[in-house]
């Protein structure tokens, strides 16, 4: 017998409220495509451009535990801030982030990344220097490539020394769109 939609939703709400989930996720629509957003009780865990949850679910479960459930309500705060950002009503995010499982270096780089202001860019080398490792531009590139929380941790604002965009885990097209949205001229 098919589970009624409203009962299904009520269970997903109740599970989110119960404090029993290791992580919750849902899809957020955006101008650069659907985003799969995952949160834990510590904060925002990941944003993925791949709308198919299967592979991501296993990865989240490996990080946080197996109690992972889709729950629209659980990501309301994240959805709200992302909607505002894409609607030009928000320039910085107030969400706390859950960076468990990342190395010290990665965490330092991501902390510096979070300080790169809206509408501005920095180079990989500059970010490396700010993180205390001036010659680690390449390693910073790797950290950008594996950034678990793109958009909120704005790796789209990091570009090559010559001003070229270099790359983006979500595809260069998205990097261009995000920079345009923030008014960066290229």
């Amino acid at each position, binding site marked *: *017998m*098919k*589970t*009624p939609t409203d*009962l*299904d939703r*009520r*269970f997903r709400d*109740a*599970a989110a409220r*119960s404090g*029993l*989930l*290791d992580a919750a996720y849902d899809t957020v629509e955006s101008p650069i495509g659907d985003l799969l957003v995952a949160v834990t009780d510590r904060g925002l865990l990941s944003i993925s451009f791949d709308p198919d*949850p299967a592979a991501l*679910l*296993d990865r*989240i*479960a490996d990080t946080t*535990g*197996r*109690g*992972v*459930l*889709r729950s629209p309500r659980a990501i309301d705060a994240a959805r709200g801030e992302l909607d505002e950002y894409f609607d030009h009503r928000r320039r910085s995010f107030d969400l706390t982030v859950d960076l468990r499982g990342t190395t010290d270096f990665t965490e330092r780089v991501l902390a510096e990344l979070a300080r790169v202001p809206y509408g501005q860019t920095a180079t990989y080398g500059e970010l490396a220097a700010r993180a205390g490792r001036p010659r680690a531009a390449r390693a910073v590139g790797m950290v950008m490539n594996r950034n678990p929380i793109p958009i909120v941790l704005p790796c789209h604002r990091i570009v090559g020394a010559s001003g070229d965009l270099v790359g983006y885990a979500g595809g260069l097209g998205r990097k261009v769109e995000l920079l345009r949205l923030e008014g960066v001229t290229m």
Partner: protein
Amino acid sequence: MMEDVAQRIPPFEAFYAEHRDVVFGVLRRTLGVDRADDAFQETFLRALRAYGRLDHAEHLRAWVLTIARNVALDVHRRTRPTAEMPEIPHVDGLPAFVELAELTDALPAKERAAVVLRYGYDLDYERIAAALGSSPDAARQATSSGVRRLRRETRR
């Protein structure tokens, strides 16, 4: 590196998506339209509470149906104190330990569930307690008094 994929416990979402319709159907038939919804929610919340401590992914359907059976019993007990145990249909192709459930049919509800979870699923008392919504001590007591009762029954 080889990993035994079949044994891997799926994320709760996959488990829930796979079994929710069966659980809902069983609770609807057992409890009726009015009481099935709350019982459905309670069943999966109990499953969620115990889920992180499961050791293997075998018999997950039988496991969640055992929880559903218990939730249904609790509902029956609350609403009709003298009611008989509701009949929850068994699904086809259940593993051998379900024969244990046949053996334990005569036991009081709590003892029956505890014995099945302990010896059919090899759960420890903490997880049995989580599935039954009771304490580990109560789970241990229910299991051992169930076993004692079974011994007396089978000696006859």
